[in-house]
């Protein structure tokens, strides 16, 4: 038995490990695989088919249960159950983070547009038209307008390439997460039936809690515990919802012609959304390909403009799926644009 169990555990670990290793590779393939989304509806159903929670229930101690990951679906950008802000009914009005602070007047323009105040004295040529740069005989002096960088009002770094996504904003209360129905753990089953099983303490390490929590949608005789407020939410965005979202962005994205012609100038913009579909904060540039290209900044700004102009998305995104769309990464890829 012990051997069997060990083998079983080891095998599970290997499978999980394989799944893990496979993830990063498979992410890179996902560009053409958006269509695979619906497939996932089924695979994550057991995680999301939660019964309604009950206000009378108690918050249970946290329990981390390894969800047997559906190993095959790794590539899809599937909404994972952990991300769900499974609000417990007790806190139904989970205070969203403060709405985007009013755009603070970041530029601190100097009170007077006096050239003398320019913080970059180097950039400002002397007040007189310098004749030096014109070595050629130019008897008719056409005073060259001099150029000086205006004291930039607080050079706010415009494109903040932030490789790290901000954490999912609605931090799911951990206690609630524990209420996720632990799918019948392969480890627990033997424990219940085999009292003599004690040789290996692994099981004890893994789980000492009795199975409990939301359970499956099957009506439970037990008093209900905290479940997911989403209840029977569908587990993924439908194709038509994604298509509507894309169509909206197509209207708002107006990349400059040079960006269209530049080829693989791909910008990924991440946004966090409030439950009403409005932006929870300014979009974040996750990545810009060809970041050293002078066009990268222009491309990034065009992408941000598209997202901000398109928001809010409340008319497209259904509130019951907020857990899925509370964060969205838009990948702007101009390569297929017509006229580019």
């Amino acid at each position, binding site marked *: 038995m012990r051997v069997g169990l060990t083998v079983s555990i*080891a095998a599970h*670990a290997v499978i*999980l490990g394989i799944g*893990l290793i496979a*993830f990063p590779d498979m992410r890179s393939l*996902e560009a053409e695989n958006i269509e695979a989304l619906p497939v996932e509806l089924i695979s994550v159903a057991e995680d999301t088919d939660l019964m309604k929670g009950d206000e009378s229930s108690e918050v249970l101690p946290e329990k*981390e249960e*390894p*969800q047997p990951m559906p190993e095959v679906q790794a590539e899809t*950008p*599937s*909404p*994972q159950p*952990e*991300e769900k802000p499974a609000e417990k009914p007790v806190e139904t009005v989970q205070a969203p983070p403060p709405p985007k602070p009013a755009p603070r007047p*970041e530029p601190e*323009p*100097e*009170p*007077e*547009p006096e*050239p003398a105040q320019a913080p970059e004295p180097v950039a*400002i040529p002397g007040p007189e*038209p310098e004749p030096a740069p014109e070595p*050629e005989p130019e*008897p008719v002096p056409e005073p*060259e*307008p*001099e150029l*000086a*960088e205006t004291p*930039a*009002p*607080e050079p706010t770094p415009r494109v903040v390439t932030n490789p790290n996504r901000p954490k999912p904003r609605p931090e799911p209360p951990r206690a609630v997460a524990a209420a996720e129905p632990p799918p019948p753990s392969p480890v627990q089953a033997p424990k219940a039936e085999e009292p003599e099983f004690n040789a290996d303490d692994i099981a004890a390490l*893994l789980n000492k809690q009795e199975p409990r929590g939301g359970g499956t949608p099957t009506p439970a005789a037990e008093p209900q515990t905290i479940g997911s407020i989403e209840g029977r939410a569908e587990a993924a*965005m439908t194709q038509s919802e994604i298509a509507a*979202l894309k169509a909206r*962005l197509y209207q*708002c994205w*107006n990349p*400059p*012609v040079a960006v269209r012609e530049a080829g693989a100038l791909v910008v990924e913009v*991440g946004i966090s959304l409030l439950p009403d579909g409005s932006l929870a904060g300014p979009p974040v540039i996750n990545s810009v390909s060809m970041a050293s290209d*002078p*066009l990268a900044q*222009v*491309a990034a*700004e065009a992408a*941000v*403009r*598209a997202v901000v*102009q398109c928001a809010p998305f409340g008319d497209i995104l259904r509130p019951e799926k907020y857990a899925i*769309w509370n964060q*969205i990464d*838009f*990948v702007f*890829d101009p390569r*297929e*644009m017509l*006229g580019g």
Partner: protein
Amino acid sequence: VALLLAVAVSLVGFAGQALAQLRVDITQGTIQPMPIAIPAFVGAGGGVDELSQNVAQVVTADLKRSGLFAPVDPSAFIEQVVPPSATPNFANWRPLNAQALVSGSVAPTGDGRIMAEYRLWDVVSGQYLVGKQFFASPDNWRRLAHIIADSVYERLTGERGYFDTRVAFVDETGGKSQRVKRLAIMDQDGANVRYLTNGEDLVVTPRFSPSRQELAYASLTGDNWHIFVLNIETGQRELIGNFPNMAFSPRFSPDGQQVVLSLQQGGNSNIYRLDLRTRQLTRLTDSPSIDTAPSYSPDGSRIIFESDRGGQQQLYVMSALGGAAERISFGSGRYGTPVWSPRGDLIAFTKQEGGEFKIGVLRPDGSGERILTEGFHNEGPTWAPNGRVLMFFRDTGGPNGGPQLWSVDITGYNEQMVPTPSFASDPAWSPLLG
């Protein structure tokens, strides 16, 4: 084993988190001019005066004519003036759908000059993008405006601007039988026209030096064609080479040190290179055909020209040192007046086909030919310094017709007539003045 499992579990949890984002690929967008608001600049004393208003109007006109911007109608403005020293109230500009806002001021500096200052804002994100100050004599206020427009254009499109430039052209007056052709120059928007020759001699094919404010052109004096180089600022004119035969279609090398041209010999013509300092003439082609209209690649390594050596007038590319030439145009019709883009990526040409004269572009390897405009007569393309816009002349025919200058985007869109005092042909676009 337990440890392994625990690690695996935590890693899976992490990977799951990373995968949790909803990713949406956006592969299509709109191709629309960017709405931009350019309220009148603040003038001396804090109000709006004629000068400050004019500057804003020229900036507006430049950006609008580029076809890449759609300036918002000032009558819709909620706020008429935005001082550049203050952060705009973006709430007043978002309802107008303006995506960018230019605020600026023009004021005398006290030493006889004026200072123009502007700031560019991203209305959508509420961000400050760029701001600059310029000083100039009051006479040069239009240049100030063009430079500001270039700066805005560059910051929003990621490409060099082309507004602070001039266009040389052949001004044509008088009836068709006794037309007077004068060399003229103006700002790219048609302002500040100046005549450089008096019209006694017939002048054609003015060409700008890529590096200096100089023009090369061909002039018919008596029965002889000569090539002159003219310094625009000084008005100094220099005859380069006194050739026994007809010389025409001069064009500068990218460094401005040499001129390629064609010399006629009997019924043929060949291409030569003239060193402007040593006056040494080097023959580049040697064929019993008409080789003419040479134009350097921007790196100076190659020359494109037209030739009928294959029986019909086509485009050929050869080394700048001469030698074997490779034909790159293979379509039907006759190709002429090739001009290499300052960006190097395209060659513009005139194409005669089916009784029409068309303007088109193709890549230096001959691929990707596109016709940008066609009609009764379109000829003589010249590139804006950023390689994004072409100017050419168009004659619609008719007894009272004559040539006029037009510009078109390399996408074939945004065709616009360029205002000139009278008929005009043979435009040549200058490099940026700055």
